[in-house]
């Protein structure tokens, strides 16, 4: 099914205990594309990524990756599917007791019987792709935030995944690292023929590299479109989000009693 979407989220509802995070959300990620899922903090973006990766199961609905219903797979089948996925965590999640080289070699050693000489070549190729071949012998504690993110990216693409997932890849980076990571996401996606999902709230960096955007707010898709469509959108939420406006559909004030009432002490908080 080369033309069918690689990832389909079909009417998914998810709740942590009594708190509903996603409310009947549906979206699809076409093969070969870089798709961003944007929204404010706590809107359920990362939860979506965790559902796609099979870390959690939806309360209702289906998540399909490459035609397989992720939430119905047993652990063996899920692990088999995950071998074709790569994930970049917000702060890299590098194994701190291993060097950069060992981090990138980790999956190759765990999942393949490749000889050490070939693993070495592959690791150096992956590190070269992110510009850190010279840092192979360093430990994660010796890396800057941007370097750690790039090493994590090299580790995530170690087995040439068909699906790459990025959880807030731009968070806390300086402008140079930010541009580097953005370009790497786009270039690696195209070079590997992969499909990428980008969960982020960094608008400008994301719009520069993605093919399509979904906006999530309060557990629902509130807007979607290509980068140009998003930039031209008149949708109030999109305008507030893209423009970084303090007030709008997402209110500045947390719900509270009327201000005057509070100040006069008529009603205690």
């Amino acid at each position: 099914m080369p033309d069918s979407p690689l990832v389909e989220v079909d009417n998914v509802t998810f709740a942590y205990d009594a708190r509903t995070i996603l409310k009947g959300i549906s979206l699809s990620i076409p093969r070969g594309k870089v798709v961003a899922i944007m929204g404010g903090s706590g809107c359920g973006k990362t939860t979506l990524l965790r559902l796609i990766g099979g870390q959690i199961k939806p309360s209702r609905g289906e998540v399909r990756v490459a035609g397989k219903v992720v939430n119905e797979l047993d652990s063996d089948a899920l692990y088999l599917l995950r071998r074709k996925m790569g994930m970049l965590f917000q702060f890299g999640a590098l194994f701190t007791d291993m060097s950069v080289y060992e981090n990138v070699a980790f999956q190759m050693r765990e999942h393949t019987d490749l000889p050490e000489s070939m693993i070495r070549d592959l690791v150096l190729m992956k590190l070269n792709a992110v510009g850190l071949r010279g840092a192979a012998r360093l430990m994660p504690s010796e890396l800057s935030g941007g370097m750690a993110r790039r090493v994590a990216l090299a580790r995530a693409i170690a087995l040439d995944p068909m699906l790459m997932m990025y959880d807030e890849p731009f968070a806390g980076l300086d402008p140079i690292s930010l541009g580097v990571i953005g370009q790497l996401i786009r270039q690696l996606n195209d070079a590997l023929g992969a499909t990428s999902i980008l969960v982020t709230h960094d608008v400008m960096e994301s719009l520069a590299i993605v093919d399509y955007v979904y906006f999530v707010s309060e557990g629902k898709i509130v807007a979607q479109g290509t980068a140009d469509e998003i930039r031209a959108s008149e949708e109030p939420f999109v305008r507030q989000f893209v423009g970084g406006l303090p007030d709008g559909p997402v209110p500045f004030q947390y719900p509270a009693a009327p201000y005057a009432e509070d100040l006069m002490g008529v009603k205690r908080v």
Partner: protein
Amino acid sequence: MFDWLAGRLRFIGSPFVEALIKLGFGTRFFFAVLFQSGMALRRFNLIIRETYYTGVLSLVIIVVSGLFVGMVLCLQGYDTLTRYGSAEASGVLVALSLLRELGPVVSGLLFASRAGSAITAEIGLMKATEQLVAMEMMAVNPVARVIAPRFWAGVLSMPLLALLFSAVGIFGGYLVGVVWLGLDKGTFWSQMQAQVDLHYDIGNGIIKSLIFGVAVSTIAVFEGFDAQPTAEGVSGATTRTVVTSSLAILGLDFILTAFMLRGT
């Protein structure tokens, strides 16, 4: 009235229910570790690597503590036994005390403080920094790859450390008894050789330390894996490892000793 009573009962009962739930999770986790141990046992270098961190790095505290415990034991034993004209039996007292009880128990307590807390903190921090989730997303089971090697390293290290503790303690007793207090060297060693039974004294000591190793390792890896992924959570888990392990060692020691003595 009924609501008040129910509230009181809940207040009293909930800690016990929570403790019971945790015990259940811990037991399931223990069996999951055993079930997932295949990879660690096949790739023995993973266990050897962890044995270095849990066992080899605990050597200093074990050796120093063993030496001083042995020396103090001999000093106290000599002082008491001299009153009954049996000062030569000091060596036997030191050896039996160490091999039967103090070796396994004190080295177990030290192991829980030194290695158990380190294991919990490491696993807890791996969880807090998403390393365990990252491993799962790479289709590698963290219980098999991270937990099982640490568990087996602890189980293997504990009896060896206990034996070393006893051996060094006996040497400490020799230093005090023979070198310092002037006991006859031949009597010191020959009485020890005659009185210490390989199966009953040394064997039972090894069995005890092995069981303590299983208990401490299980508690340490479980607390780390179960820790809240925050600084406070990891700190609490580390403390719980030391406290729970210490209590478990003391409780198990009593039960094991009761069984072992009944056999004579």
